């Protein structure tokens, strides 16, 4: 083999090899010294949230304004692809995949547990278990899962989609920096950005899968006479791994799309069922009131670090979430970019901001409203149990409504499929990121990343290093916030160039 070909091949595998080595090293540390890793990441996480948590809040607000400017400003009509290109997926297919990748499993996990947790443990200036606490609980659940996470994802996915589909560059995060650093994107700086993205994605998805597996186990134990132990959790992970590897082999069009479409339909059906079986008017009252409060307080809450009262609560919830969404953004951003070819920026931004957020609001109103109704109106003390074991909170609520077994079974299916779609899309994105942005990455890389993220989740669930891993993913949010802020600058510069020198030239 000629030397130059060897060099090219080595460069091509550089991000893959280095990322793999770093991930394996940290997983090994998590296995060998989980307590020390937990203490170290806990300390680092605390310092970051305490010292620069305000930065996350400001950055997320900047991303929201940026997204709206992109949709409403002079670049809204630009297409993420050639000028005459049509969208690759239908609206429903696109929304389904957006939702499955961006929220999915987390929403089922926290749909009941988060409102109940805020209701039981609000900031110190609100009386726990009061009507005020209930209002606060649903309002902040809306806020944490509302349009901000999507604005964060939009910055990432819009940049990647623009530079790859409109400018013909590989769909990599480093490609978005060409206007700022030029050919250095092909050097250590570009590699560092892509490796950081792989790092955040692997650890983020591994923790999400670990938590998802725990919830499926909890659900299985609630429905079937099965012990919710480590063996069951490992079996769940093994089964789901086989399923998502199959889905991954089948490809994006048949695999993730079909599963996501089916899952969103099931999710909507489950919501509708809960709305009918639960306190319908109460839920709709919660939805309407909270939407109003959400809109009225959007700007205030977007920038509210609460330095004078409730600061610790804000740190442990809002700032944690914002860091989590940012650390999650390379994965979701790359995935959403890869399914958004052919859409205009305006429809992309409004579609990605409004539709998933509305679905999420309705989800929280239905499940949060139903669980708060139990607490406030029927005197069922469910909040303690929900906070004590977040993974079974949803199943606990079902026990007080008709059709418990059916609802639990549907939820288990939903969880399983969301698990599969999340892991499948993460596997695809990781293989793509480590194949120089190849949209059809080699099968062996998909298998490598798929097995690695599942085995990481399984092993760290057993050794107790999963939370440490989650904190490491969140720590990656700090450099990524800077990366994303620079990304907005780079994207604006590129679009301005196109408007000034290319579109005007075309018109002439």
């Amino acid at each position, binding site marked *: 083999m000629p030397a130059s070909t060897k060099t090219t091949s080595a460069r091509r595998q550089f991000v893959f090899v280095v990322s793999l080595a770093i991930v394996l090293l940290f997983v090994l540390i998590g296995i060998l010294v989980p307590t020390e890793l937990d203490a170290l990441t806990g300390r680092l996480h605390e310092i970051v949230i305490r010292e620069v948590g305000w930065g996350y809040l400001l950055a997320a607000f900047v991303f929201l304004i940026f997204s709206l400017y992109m949709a409403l400003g002079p670049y809204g009509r630009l297409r993420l692809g050639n000028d005459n290109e049509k969208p690759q997926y239908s609206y429903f297919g696109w929304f389904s995949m957006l939702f499955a990748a961006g929220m999915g499993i987390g929403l089922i996990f926290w749909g009941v547990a988060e409102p109940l947790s805020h209701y039981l443990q609000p900031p110190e200036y609100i009386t726990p278990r009061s009507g005020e606490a209930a209002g606060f609980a649903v309002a902040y659940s809306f806020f944490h899962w509302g349009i901000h996470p999507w604005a964060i994802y939009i910055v990432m996915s819009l940049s990647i989609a623009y*530079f790859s589909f409109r*400018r*013909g*560059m590989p769909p990599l995060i480093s490609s978005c920096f*060409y*206007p*700022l650093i*030029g*050919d250095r994107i092909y050097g250590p700086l570009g590699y560092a950005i892509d490796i950081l993205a792989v790092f955040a994605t692997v650890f983020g998805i591994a923790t999400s899968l670990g938590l998802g597996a725990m919830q499926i186990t909890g659900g299985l134990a609630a429905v079937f006479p099965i012990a919710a132990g480590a063996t069951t959790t490992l079996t769940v992970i093994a089964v789901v791994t086989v399923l998502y590897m199959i889905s991954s082999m089948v490809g994006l069009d048949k695999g993730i799309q079909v599963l996501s479409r089916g899952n969103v339909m099931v999710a909507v059906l489950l919501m509708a069922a809960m709305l009918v079986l639960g306190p319908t008017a109460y839920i709709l009252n919660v939805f309407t009131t909270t939407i109003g409060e959400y809109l009225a307080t959007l700007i205030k809450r977007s920038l509210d670090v609460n330095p004078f009262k409730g600061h610790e609560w804000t740190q442990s919830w809002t700032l944690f979430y914002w860091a989590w969404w940012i650390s999650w953004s390379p994965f979701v951003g790359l995935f959403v970019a890869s399914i958004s070819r052919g859409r205009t920026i305006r429809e992309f931004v409004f579609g990605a901001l409004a539709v998933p957020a509305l679905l999420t609001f309705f989800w929280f109103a239905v499940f949060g409203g139903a669980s708060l109704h139990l607490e406030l109106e029927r005197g069922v003390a469910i909040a303690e149990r929900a906070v004590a074991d977040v993974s079974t909170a949803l199943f606990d609520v079902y026990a007080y409504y008709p059709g418990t077994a059916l609802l639990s079974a549907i939820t288990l299916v939903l969880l399983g499929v969301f698990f599969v779609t999340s892991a499948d899309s993460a596997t695809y994105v990781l293989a793509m990121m480590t194949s120089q942005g190849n949209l059809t990455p080699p099968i062996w890389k998909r298998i490598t990343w798929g097995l690695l993220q599942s085995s990481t989740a399984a092993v760290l669930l057993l050794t107790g290093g999963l939370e440490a891993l989650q904190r490491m993913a969140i720590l990656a949010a700090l450099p990524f916030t800077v990366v994303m802020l620079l990304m907005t600058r780079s994207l604006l*510069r*590129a*679009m301005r*160039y*196109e408007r000034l*020198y*290319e579109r005007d030239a075309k018109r002439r």
Partner: protein
Amino acid sequence: MFETVLIPLNLRESPQLVERVAAALAAYGAESIILLHVQSSPQPSRRSAELDRHAEELRQAGYRCRVLQRSGSVAPTVVLTAAEEGCSLIAYPWRYKSWIQRSLVGSVTKDIVRLSDRPVFVYKPARVQSSRTEGDLNGPVVMYATDFRDTDSVVIPYLTARLPDTGSLLLLHAGERAPDPAAEGRRLARVNAALERLATECREPGHTVTTASVVGRPRTAVVRQAQRNRVDVLVIGKADSERALATVLGSTAESIAYNARCSVLIIPRTATPEEL
């Protein structure tokens, strides 16, 4: 030629500095000099003797010179007087101000550049330049930073006819990188072709004309290139921007005029070389 040149003085300048400004202007064909002092108070100035002394020294050095005194806000008065007296150029020595001074009292240099519709020459002594000295053996180096906009048509006559003693002329384009490598290749090809076209227009017997293009924000890249190429006089065009950000931060021309470490000639788009 720049026939009549207005030199505003705050009378803290040394006679040597004033003479060096006059000498620099003479190289570009200045025939008559008006020394202007603007004071804030309408009372007769106690420093008119100093202004006369500067004028007298210039006359003794062989320059046609007269003096004027005005009162009012400095920058607008200078620009107004230049119009009243039919001056073809406003020239003045650059005065350093720290950022605190600039924040508190503003910069007259920047204000005159902003307000003037006539060419402005900001003279910077050789000591603020990197290592080059005036009257270098190879002749002065003039650099024109172009953005290929309509200011070129106004500036080129100055480069070809009004800077006759130019030892070498460097045509520089500083622009932002295109969004992708292919577009960047096309941009570079366009830039090089445009620079070559400009170079052809500027070529005169005895002049060396070279071209260069760099990537970066013009307001910083041009200053850096002027320093790197040891430029004596940096020529820039000025187009009044209506962009909100430029209104707040100041134009590229104002920024370059202040930050460059060599003398800067700013030619506004509204300047009419035919009439000068």
